[in-house]
Structures are given as C-alpha cells and as structure tokens.
C-alpha cells in the first residue's frame, strides 16, 4: 500500500490525519508532550508562547461544539491566532468547492487547518492539496478517523492504568459509523493492548472488523468480562429507529452500560465516553456520574493532547 501521507520521508509528523500507521514511539512522544501541557492547564496563567504568530483555522464542515472548543482553547493556550469557520452554513452552500474554500483560507495566511468533514478521507484530500508549509489536523472525517480523540483516550488510559501491554479493553456501541472507534482501535493495537474487544449488535459492526485486530462480542456480559477499561460510543439519534435498531429502549436493554452490566468488568475498571452522552441510551446516569467514570478528565486531557499535537506539528516541543 502507498505510504502514510501524514509522515515525511524521515518519518516525522507532517499532518495528523489518522492513527493508523503511526509508530508506537511517535504516539508516546505525543503523550509525553501532552503530559508537559497538563501542568500548563493547571497554572494560573494558562499560556505558553510556542505558537505565537501562527494562524490556525478551525474548518468545521459539520457541527461540533466540544471538539471545536477544545481545539480553540488548545490553540489559544499556545498563543496562536485562531479563526473559527463554520463552513457547513456558509460558502459550501453557495456552491464553492472544498478546494476553493481551502485555497482562499490558505491565501489568508493559514499555517494550520483543523478540519472536520462529514466525508471519510476529506482531511487526507485537503492535506494532499495544501502547500507544503501548511499542516492539517483531522478533527473527524466521516466514519474514518478522529485521531486526537483516539490520542486523548489512550492518554487517559495511560494515566489511570499504566502499561498497555497488560490490559483488556472493550469498545461498546456503534462501531460501524464511529470514527472514534476506528482511531481507538488503531491506537490501542499499536500500543500493544493484547485483549481488545468490540461489543455491538451485528447491524452496528463493519464487515471484516476483526482484521483491525479486535475480538467481536455481541453480548455485554461476555464482552465486558474482566476488562480494565470500558469505552462507550455515542449512538446517533437518527440510528435509534430504523433498519439498524428497533428502538433506543431495546438498545439500552442490551447494550446500555448499567451498574449491573459493569459488574462483569474488573472492580477497578474505568469507564470512558467521547461525549456528548445520551444518558439512558448507551449509558446509565449512575455509571456516567459514578466513581469509575473518567469522562470529564478525558475532556481536560483533550486540551493537553491537542496542544501537544499542534506544538509538534509546528516544529516545537513541550512546555
């Protein structure tokens, strides 16, 4: 297969488009760099001058609050100038092509694009097109990848659980449509997790998912048995009724994470969710707010991880 276009000829990160194909050392470098930024976020003056004078454009072709905001905060804490563009509601509807949009913004002096787009491969497409000095971060493309989410998830796991090579981890829910799941699977496989499972009904699993290095389960009791980490996925509203699933209620009954179902996991297992949560659909409130949940720390770490990625792409290091 063609080489991963996000690495340059020396194996350095040129863009962050997917976790697939990243060397384990590079992931650890990103996580170590992120550790140094966690401290910055706890200071009174939460700012470092690493990206001063750089222009970062948040290009969102799909609505998002959380991801866009954390990228914005991360960029501002690195002292970059940030421009937010909600393209779904402006030029694309006027008939401007994606490339024209990107060219115009590049002409305004962009140094980095943070891109979210509903089509898989959109970030790769933009990265192939832009001038060599411009960096692209994929903030979610269709069902394909959401690499900073995958990185913040493994950052969280490393913080709470330590050595990846001894862990059992289950990812639960709508794997088929989930870019988060794909990025998590790649990251955890690269970091050497020996027991990685996906738990979902057949309608929410992509064909040949085993080839990504996971074991498939269709029921929670077996899928969560003795795991160290439970990673829940969001179920989109439009998928709750129709040919994929009969109802949200039936889904919750079989795949919603309740305290009872969580008992199958190890007593000290942590529970993660990329947000935003559908309480009562994929996760019960008592679990979401319970002592095993690390869902809010994920959000906090997300800022440090995104700072690390931006800083490394811009040629800098940690704080």
């Amino acid at each position: 297969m063609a080489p991963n276009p996000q690495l340059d000829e020396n194996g350095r990160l040129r863009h962050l488009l997917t976790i697939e194909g990243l060397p384990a050392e590079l992931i650890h470098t990103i996580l170590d760099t992120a550790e140094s930024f966690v401290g910055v976020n706890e200071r009174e003056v939460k700012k470092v001058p690493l990206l001063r004078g750089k222009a970062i454009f948040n290009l969102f072709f799909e609505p998002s609050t959380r991801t866009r905001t954390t990228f914005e905060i991360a960029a501002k804490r690195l002292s970059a100038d940030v421009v937010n563009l909600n393209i779904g509601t402006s030029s694309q509807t006027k008939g401007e092509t994606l490339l024209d949009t990107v060219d115009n913004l590049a002409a305004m002096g962009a140094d980095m694009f943070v891109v979210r787009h509903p089509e898989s491969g959109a970030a790769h497409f933009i990265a192939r097109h832009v001038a060599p000095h411009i960096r692209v971060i994929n903030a979610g493309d269709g069902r394909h990848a959401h690499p900073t989410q995958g990185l913040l998830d493994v950052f969280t796991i490393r913080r709470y659980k330590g050595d990846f090579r001894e862990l059992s981890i289950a990812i639960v829910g709508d794997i088929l449509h989930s870019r988060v799941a794909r990025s998590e699977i790649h990251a955890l496989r690269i970091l050497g997790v020996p027991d990685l499972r996906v738990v979902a009904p057949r309608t929410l699993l992509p064909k040949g998912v085993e080839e990504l290095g996971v074991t498939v389960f269709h029921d929670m009791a077996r899928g969560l048995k003795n795991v160290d980490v439970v990673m829940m996925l969001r179920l989109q509203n439009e998928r709750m009724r129709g040919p994929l699933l009969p109802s949200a209620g039936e889904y919750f009954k079989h795949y919603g994470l309740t305290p009872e179902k969580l008992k199958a996991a190890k007593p000290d297992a942590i529970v993660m969710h990329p947000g935003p949560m559908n309480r009562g659909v994929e996760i019960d409130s008592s679990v979401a707010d319970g002592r095993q949940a690390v869902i809010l720390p994920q959000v906090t770490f997300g800022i440090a991880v995104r700072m690390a990625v931006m800083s490394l792409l811009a040629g800098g290091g940690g704080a």
Partner: protein
Amino acid sequence: MKIHIKGARVIDPASGFDGVADLFIAAGHIVGLGAAPEGFHANRVIEATGLVACPGLVDLSARLREPGFEYKATLESELQAAAAGGVTSLACPPDTDPPLDEPGLIEMLRYRARSLNLARVHPLGALTQKLAGERLAEMAVLREAGCVAFSQAEAPLTDTQVLLRAMEYAATFDLPIWLRPQDPHLARDGVAHDGAVASRLGLRAIPACAETVALSTILLLVRATGARVHLCRLSTRQGVEMVRRARHDGLPVTCDVSIHHLHLCDEDIGWFDTHCRLTPPLRGREDRAALAAGLKEGTIDALCSDHTPVDDDAKQLPFGEAEPGATGLELLLPLTLRWAQEAGLPLVEALARVTSIPARILGIPHGRLAVGAAADICLFDPEGTTRVTPQSLRSQGKNTPFLGQTLPGRVRMTLMDGHVVFEQGGP
C-alpha cells in the same frame, strides 16, 4: 484506396488463424489474406514486420457523453480516443441527457458518429422512458433507428413487474436486454466494496449481495421469459458462480467484466484515491481472482473498457463525493495484453474477448479478419509499451487508476472501413 499490410502477424480470433501473412485491402474491405488478389496494386504499402494485425477492438461499454455532458467529453474527443486505442466498434450506454429513448436521438448520434468516421458507434437504447424504470421505451422503433440492445445503464429498476414486462416485450421482438445487476436498496449510499478496506477507511459499503440479489432476480426472470440478457460488468466471485450455473442450465445469458475489475481490487483505493471510485465498486482480491478465472474459462464472455470520462473537478473531492468512472478506451488493448501475460493465454484467445466475442454479443459482422469482411484492423506492437499520462490520453477524461503506469503493447495504426483513422509514428 488500396492498402497492402506487409509482414504482420495476423491474428483472427474468429477463425483461430495466427500467422505471418500479408493483408490486402480495397474499397473498405479485406480482399486478400496471404496472397494478393489478381491485379491488386496498392496505393500504400504498410511495412508491418514485428507488428500484430488483429481485428479492430469491439468495446461493449464506452460512454461518449453526448448529448448533455459535453463538458466531460465530446463525441469527437472520445472517438479519437477509440481510434488511438485500436477500438473500431463500441456500444454506448443510454445514460446521456436526455437519455437515449427516442429514435431522433439515436439517429442524431449515429449521424454525428458517421460524419466523424473514426469508429462505429452502436447505441444502446433506454429500456424504459427517461430511464425512469416505469414505462417501457419504444424498443421496436428504437431498434429500427439503430439500437443494438436496451439497457437501464446505472439507473435503478426497482419495480420487478416492469422488468418482467420489459423482458417479455423484448423477447417478442428478440431484442437483447443489457443489465448491470445491482439491487438499488442494498447499494444505497454505498461507495466501496463491503470488506476490510471500506471498514478501515470508514467508507459507506456496497455488499456483494447487492449484485447477487439482483442477479438472482434477473436470472429467474430470464428463465420465465426466455429473454436474451447480457449482464454488464460483473464484480463479485458469487456473481461469477451464479452465471456459471445459469449457463450450465442453458439460460440465454452472456456477460462481461471491465478492465478495472479484472486488474484491480479494493486495496488499490490506498488512501482514498478517487481514481478508484468506480461503479460497481472495486471488490476484494478473491473477487478479482474469480473474475479473471471466469474470463479465462469463458463464463465471462468479454472484456470491456467501461470507458467513463469524468471531468477533473468531479474527481477533486473526498472519495465518497467524487463521481464514479474512469477513462478506458485507450487502455483496453494494453490491459488485455497484460491479462494474457498473467493468465498465460495465447494472444489469439485473449484477443477474442475484445474482438470476435463482443461482436457476436452485439450482433455485428465485425471483429474478424476474413476476406470479404470490413477492413477494421488494429495494428499493434506487442513488444512496445503504453505509458499512461494525462498528455498521452486523447480522451477528454484523464482519470484512470492506471495513471503513471507503463502497460504492455502499443497501438501503431488503426483502420476502420479500410481507411487509416489513427497512426502513430515513432515510439
């Protein structure tokens, strides 16, 4: 114009002839093979030692984009591409704008093609009016206007009663129907084969059963009606197996595969290469192997280019938004030769899949080199190569997954009706 082609290795798949012989052409026809007719004086002698002379290629699927899509390609650009590719007869699907569902459109297309005089254009008529899948097109009238067969192209035909009636009606007049088997519901929104590649890249998938479910329906209706059906661009291993059984049972079906599905699979998509955005989608490795085996054993009758020129803007998009299709007329011969090499097949057998057999499916008297036949001839250098670049392609469509590759064989000259429609100088 009298032409003497001297010293070529003449390959005529229709008769099985394969040997060095001179060809003599007069008044648009082959008048001598081996020995000159008495009193023959050539106006032009073509020195062809080392070259192969085979029948001009017959392509079962080439979109010419007229009328309606002239920004993608024109009749002139695409027929020049045909000539440069050694293709002298081609069938064009009816999915133009407007669709080819009226005799006037067929007559106009044939008139324009005749005046360009570069290749023989055989239009496929629309099976239903406006390709809407509801009312039958005037098939018998369209046949008189020059349609060789009737097709829905890529337009869905969801109503099986309409399909049944179309087959019954076509069978009444012994008109062939060409169908690309695909269940529109199972293929809905899909852009790639349902396999590990689509799962990894997060591309919306088209399962193999989208082909086999439709194929099953078609084959059962053929059994019920006796209609002659040609199956276009098979893509799955299971599809090949179903056609093998249907033919074993004596059903009147034929089928083809495209150069893309014969040589490529979903892995070639790499990191979202829109050149590989094709209809049907590139399938898995095992599917490709089954298609190659099916073509070799004859379950699949013919190889076609599925020539579909697409403008650059329509490919400069994320994979799922890009328009499907690839240019192919100029790659048909080189990719036939590559397949022959890979399959260890004698040239005469490989070339049958792009000459005599598709001509038989079309019901045209071409695709053969015999005294008395029209002088449609492709002269190619089997030791030469074709490098695929945007500059080297005459087609207005520059999009092909084979861009940048060097393929075996090079067309040196193409004759249609006894006149030279393409001629290449040096290497």
